[in-house]
């Protein structure tokens, strides 16, 4: 499985934000996207997922087989919003996304244990703090399987312990042959992580 971006360009409201981005990620590879605010990190992720039309070039997901024919079907998109309903409990939210997304992976309870929220699964999502909301949204990545994770500032609002836990989850996903594109400043402590510095458009191996 490979995620490929060829000469990818993105725009917001007719204004080009970035252009000429090329990369190819194979199984177990991670691309960290960094750059100043407004450099187009979120736009890049949305263009990759297909939520925004590409200004130029193309993004494609190859070798996904019948289950994952396109980037959209192969990815977990964790945006800056958590996509959870405040009126429903954490467990109900996750159970819904698991059933709706298909390809169930981990049990809801198990996923919540893994992000350290096992004891509050019965609370309405609206009662949680910012960091807890983010963590339950991260648990969404675990309840159904997707080879590609597109993460937009996944560590926003997390404390240091949860950040370390997130890094562990990302490392585990990579070692299982997953692919990650993350806009984050989180140090992963991983070998072979590539970085894409937005704003300068230069791709370098930082492993």
């Amino acid at each position, binding site marked *: 499985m490979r995620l490929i971006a060829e000469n990818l360009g993105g725009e*917001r*409201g007719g204004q080009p934000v970035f252009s000429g981005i090329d990369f190819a990620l194979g199984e177990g590879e991670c691309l960290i996207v960094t750059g100043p605010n407004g450099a187009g990190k979120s736009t890049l992720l*949305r263009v990759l*997922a*297909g*939520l*925004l039309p590409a200004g130029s070039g193309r993004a494609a997901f190859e070798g996904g087989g019948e289950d994952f*024919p*396109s980037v*959209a*079907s192969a*990815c977990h*998109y964790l*945006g*800056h*919003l*958590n*996509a*959870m*309903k*405040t*009126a*429903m409990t954490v467990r*109900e939210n996750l*159970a*819904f*996304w698991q*059933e*709706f*997304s*298909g390809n169930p992976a981990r049990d809801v309870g198990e996923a919540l244990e893994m992000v350290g929220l096992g004891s509050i699964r019965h609370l309405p999502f609206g009662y949680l703090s910012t960091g807890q909301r983010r963590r339950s949204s991260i648990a969404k990545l675990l309840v159904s399987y997707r080879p590609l994770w597109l993460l937009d500032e996944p560590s926003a609002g997390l404390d240091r312990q949860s950040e370390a836990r997130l890094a562990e989850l990302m490392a585990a996903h990579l070692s299982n042959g997953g692919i990650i594109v993350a806009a984050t400043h989180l140090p992963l402590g991983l070998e072979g992580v590539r970085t894409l510095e937005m704003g300068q458009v230069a791709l370098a191996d930082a492993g």
Partner: protein
Amino acid sequence: MLALYLREIRLGIRAGGGALTGVLFFLAVIATIPFAVGPDLNLLSRIGPAILWIGALLASLLGLDRLFQADREDGSLDLLILAGDRHMLALTVLVKCLAHWTASVLPLVIAAPVFGLILNMPPAGIGASALTLLVGTPAITFVGAAGAAVAVGLPRGGLLVSVLVLPLTIPVLIFGVSASYAAVNDPDPFMPPFLILAALTLFLAVVGPVAAALALRFSAD
């Protein structure tokens, strides 16, 4: 898809009682008309079906603007759109419409016979009005979904949705009311307008969600 239906119903019932607001608004409209028209019981029973239909139409437009906006505000809409390869987006919209109808429009249909009594309508007229409402109101929701999808990006889209949707619901209103009238006024046939009403609902059940899905795809920013 069943999961989505159940989630939407659960939210519709839990989040602030949208169903009750709709029924109360419906009651307010019905209760105001006799004050405006005057205490002429014959006149009231004659225009009863029309009043019931207008009240139900306005009340069912109430919660429509939140149909997609709530999902957009918490980011769920992105994921629903991304799931397009597994669940066709138009089908997702259809399921959301059905759930919306069940949670906030079906109570109006159930309340309509009670409100018919307020308007001094004969039993046959009440039955016919309730039946035409049951068959016709889904069409309003399907048209409304297209309107809600167009206005999803606007912060104060509520009124715009109503203005966009109302003209498109006129055919539904015409055939709904004429079928209800026909049940009471003897020479008029009941079945032709009723069947056209049913056809309108089926037609809009296809066109509405497809149009809404198209609008939603281009609404992402």
